[in-house]
């Protein structure tokens, strides 16, 4: 049925190149339409088929047997594309040239979305969710390819033909996309190689690769410079999705990290410290002043209190990766202050913790929990998660609340007039006092 429709679409400028073949079958090529890749560059979409329909099929690739296929030919007069075919036992090469005219124009509209966890801890199950979609105005047979840098159990190279439905043309459904092809790959992250592992997804037609997206699983100590895509995913400089791989939590690994550092800490002063965390207001200057007296330089990496999130975390990861520091303290607000929720925040903290610990110079990592505002029970669950994270990775937890006991607790949370709204539930009037505690206990 679709086939007939396509014939009628291109009836105005029908372009057929019959091929002499054994038997009654002929291989034909027909212009379906054209599309632009840039404002001026035009390509022709051709359909290749046998008529009458061959009992066996046009042959393009060893692993793809199709009765008909679309292919792309440049619009230039001299341009041609050659495709091998097979009908029964007969093989040949079909040369397809672009016709001078074509029936209609299409707009290239297809996409690949990749989703992966924010991070994986080696040994835990990991997954990649890939989807591709088409909003062409006609059904399209795409070649969907998955290529991996190293085969893993259950994750190997794959190539398949996808028939994706067109977008809906009627008014009622005009905003809905066409059909999605979705695939979920689940694997054990213990199988990941020690270095970078990549999985590349490609959407193509013979003659043209439309889209390619890559996901990279990278151990924390090898992370590239990270940035954040508009959809909130961590990406490298080329825009590839990056999933940091955290080291496995083994006792041996823990000892390897901890013992030498404990020995150093007992004997050597800290010369450079980094504090990452929520906007600490004047507390930052107080802390810097106090550390200066101990001859310790302070680098403060604040995240914006109103919109703290993955972008600031990525920036902190980049800075920790290139600027040596000896002590890292993460100031944890008493509740997740980003819309994403607790789970995301715990992931951010886990990544920062691991990045700090993987640094050759860092000897001490502290998760400092800021006091919670009275009557804020929702913070308890989040803070429990942070404590659990600290316990699991054996990171020092500094409960500032236990060390801070002001007579007028509620007053401390009242915002100062004239200040920008911090909106992160900090005891804004007591940051200097907290900085003092931090100085004494964390460094």
């Amino acid at each position, binding site marked *: 049925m679709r086939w007939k429709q396509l014939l009628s679409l291109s009836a105005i400028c029908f372009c057929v190149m019959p091929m002499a073949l054994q038997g009654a079958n002929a291989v034909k090529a027909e212009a379906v339409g054209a*599309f632009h890749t840039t404002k001026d560059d035009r390509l022709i979409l051709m359909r290749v088929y046998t008529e009458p329909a061959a009992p066996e099929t046009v042959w393009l690739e060893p692993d793809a047997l199709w009765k008909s296929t679309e292919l792309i030919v440049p619009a230039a007069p001299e341009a041609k594309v050659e495709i091998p075919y097979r009908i029964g036992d007969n093989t040949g090469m079909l040369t397809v040239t672009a016709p001078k005219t074509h029936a209609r124009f299409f707009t290239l509209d297809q996409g690949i979305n990749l989703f992966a966890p924010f991070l994986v801890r080696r040994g835990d199950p990991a997954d990649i969710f890939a989807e591709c979609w088409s909003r062409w105005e006609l059904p399209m047979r795409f070649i969907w390819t998955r290529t991996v840098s190293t085969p893993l159990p259950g994750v190997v190279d794959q190539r398949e033909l996808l028939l994706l439905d067109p977008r809906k043309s009627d008014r*009622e459904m005009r905003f809905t996309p066409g059909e999605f092809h979705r695939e979920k790959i689940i694997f054990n992250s213990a199988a990941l190689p020690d270095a970078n592992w990549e999985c590349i997804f490609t959407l193509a037609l013979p003659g043209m690769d439309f889209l390619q997206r890559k996901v990279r699983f990278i151990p924390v100590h090898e992370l590239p410079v990270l940035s954040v895509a508009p959809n909130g995913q961590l990406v490298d400089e080329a825009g590839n999705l990056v999933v940091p791989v955290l080291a496995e939590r083994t006792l041996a690994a823990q000892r390897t990290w901890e013992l030498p550092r404990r020995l150093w800490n007992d004997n050597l002063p800290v010369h450079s410290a980094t504090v990452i965390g929520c906007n600490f207001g004047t507390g930052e200057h107080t802390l810097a002043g106090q550390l200066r007296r101990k001859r310790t330089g302070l680098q403060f990496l604040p995240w914006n209190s109103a919109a703290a999130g993955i972008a600031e975390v990525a920036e902190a990861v980049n800075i920790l990766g290139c600027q040596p520091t000896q002590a890292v303290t993460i100031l944890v607000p008493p509740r997740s202050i980003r819309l994403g929720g607790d789970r995301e925040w715990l992931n951010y903290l886990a990544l920062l913790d691991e990045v700090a610990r993987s640094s050759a110079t860092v000897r001490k990592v502290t998760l400092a929990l800021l006091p919670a505002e009275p009557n804020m029970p929702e913070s308890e669950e989040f803070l429990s998660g942070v404590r659990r994270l600290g316990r699991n990775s054996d990171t020092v937890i500094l409960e500032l609340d236990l060390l801070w006991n002001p007579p007028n607790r509620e007053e401390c949370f009242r915002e100062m007039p004239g200040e920008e709204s911090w*909106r992160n539930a900090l005891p804004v009037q007591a940051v200097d006092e907290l900085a003092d505690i931090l100085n004494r206990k964390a460094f």
Partner: protein
Amino acid sequence: MLHRVLFLCLLLLLPVARAEQWFVEAKTGSRQAVAADGEGIFAVEVELPESLLVYSEPDRRSFRPQESAFRRYYTVELQYASVEKQPLAVKLFFKTKEGYFFQSAAEFQLTPNVWQTLRIDLTAPARTLEPVGHDWQWCDLTAATVFNAGVKCYSDTPRRGRLLWKAPRFEGERPETTLTVEQWTLPSKIEKNRRFDSRFRLSREYFNAFDPEEIQVDFEVRRSFEETGRRFPAFYTLDYRNELSFTRETWYPTGAPYWSLRYLPQTTGAHFIRLHVRDRKSSITTPWRNFTVMDSKLPGPVGIHPENPRYLRFADGTPFWPIGINMHTNIDLRSEQTFQFGHRPDRGIADYQDYFEAAGSNGVNSVEIWLASWSLAIEWNMLNFGMYGVGRYNLMNAAKLDLLLELARENGIYVHLTLDNHGKISSRTDPEWALNPMNLKSDYVAANGGFLEHATQFYSNEEAWKCYSRRNRYLAARYGADPTIWGVELWSEVDLTDDFRAHYDDKSALRWHERAAREWKSLASARHLMTTHVCGTYHRNIHYQELWKLPELDYVVGDGYRDAKHQIVDFLQGGSQAIKKTFPGNPYIVTEYGGTPGAGAFGNIRADIHGGIWSAFFLEYAGTPLLWWHDFIHVHQLYGHYRGLAEFIRDIDRADPALNPVPVTVSAKEAQALALAAPEQFYAWIVECGAMRNYPDKPDQAAKRSGLRLAAPDLKVLKAGRYRVDFYNTVTNESMGSAEIDYAGGALELDLPEMQIDMALKMRPAAPKGGAK
């Protein structure tokens, strides 16, 4: 009255079930309608794994956001009937008309064979809904425009049963929060003549934040506590990001909406600013905050030249003589057909990026941009993506215009912004009235909120004015502080709107223009120049001259399409003289021209480009005419014509009151010349007449003409003395030679070098001997 209030209160308390159809979808696109049984219970078979969606959808032809459905909760009663014992996981979800999907962050568990009530809080602070496949945060805008609402069941393991549900309800009053301004970011120091943006949020959510009757936010600025402040509107908006995949440009909303204010400071020193927020329940005024305006070299907005009101200049006195192209919309189907370019894909703002880079680097400093229904309009028929008929604005298109203005600024281009084109209220010429959301007879009137029976009622109907004024308030709030806009045109070819002649004669169109221009000027801190535009030729400007005699309209614009038998130089000369006579105190620019209204042959259009821009400079136009066929220039890369003129006039102040046209003649009758003279300046352009009707296909192979002599027989203005004469190629601006002459006063005669098609010359006092370095 009391009864009405009570009735309204009661209405707000009642839960609302919307009139809509239910669907079940086990696979994207494979949906089937579901009907309720006699007891109002819907049922579908559930067969999992994977997912199944059941959702409601209103009739697209009548879907219009209803305030009565803008409630706190969405409540649905469900039952999973099954022999299984395991609960079934479900999420509630919502979709906008454009397909943006939101689902509940929480997962609900349906215990088999038990009726359960699921309820979700629809307010943004509740954070109960998360975006899926995009990063637009759930907010009042999405809550007010919910198109699909329903339930998603999913399972990784096989499940079999029946899902039953009753029509859901939007219910519960939205919480009463104290009205406050939050997260107001304001720079402490800003540059004079640079637009500054400030953003903030309000603690309350609104059904329609575009409706100033529901929520009106203004800001007030003053320079001292003794000074009376000026008030300007703030606006509600949302950030977007854009991607270009091949030729498809896609814009994605991102984050949560917020309020913004934009202001153009034009004086230095301390400034004070505060916000006035008024909604239906309360109003607040924030305390004054202050910022300092630092001096800058930015020229400021464009205004009328105070000493020579037929020309323009920037606020700092720098001359502005627009060299421009009409880039109305990025694609032009008529151009594709007329010039047989074939299909030119719509790449949205990416097209403008290419156009602006090419034009700006070749000396073009002005373009006309339309807010056309098929490009950048913010209010139009709900059938279009992002449009919701009357009263809600397309924030994606608004963001596109922001980017367009930014690209223009980066490329040294100033924008002539056309708010509306005639087709919007025309049922005859380029008719779009059938699609106008105000149209009461449109098929989608219920969805659009249409109310006007005929387009002819536009100029006199108060509801239409209210709708127009509300949109302009938004546009002025967003773009009114932008000095990149050098002029605002209320209408393009206003005389082609339905029954315009009658509206002109009964003065309703005049009153309307007066009101619209006055309002924009009061709302825009850049104090943009205002005008309106007519079709045809300058004769129409004279015909409808009362329009530009309104004090609110600052300059005259019109079309310059010519009869094929006329030559462009003569045509523009006629227009200049006639307009000067009718409007002696207004700048005049032809903002649409290029052959006949149906274009013309390649040589005709190229002649118009070259001849149009050069003759406009030597005649009394306030800028070059703007060619309508911008694709023609871009495809054939004819920007060089603009570069030649831009470089030639770089050191000439066309607005100098002493610099005026003088009559000149050329020794050959096949050539003609135009000239300008001031006491110590003389400029001329000499051109072959035939080339201005049909420009040669191969200009470098055009016939060379030598032995020409230019004469200015009655040159009284130029002072006697020794002058240096420089001759220039008009496309490359390369020197064609120079000479020094002694001019004794009176008639001037100059021998010209050999030329092809045309040439230009500058004559200025020669440097004293030994004085020049």
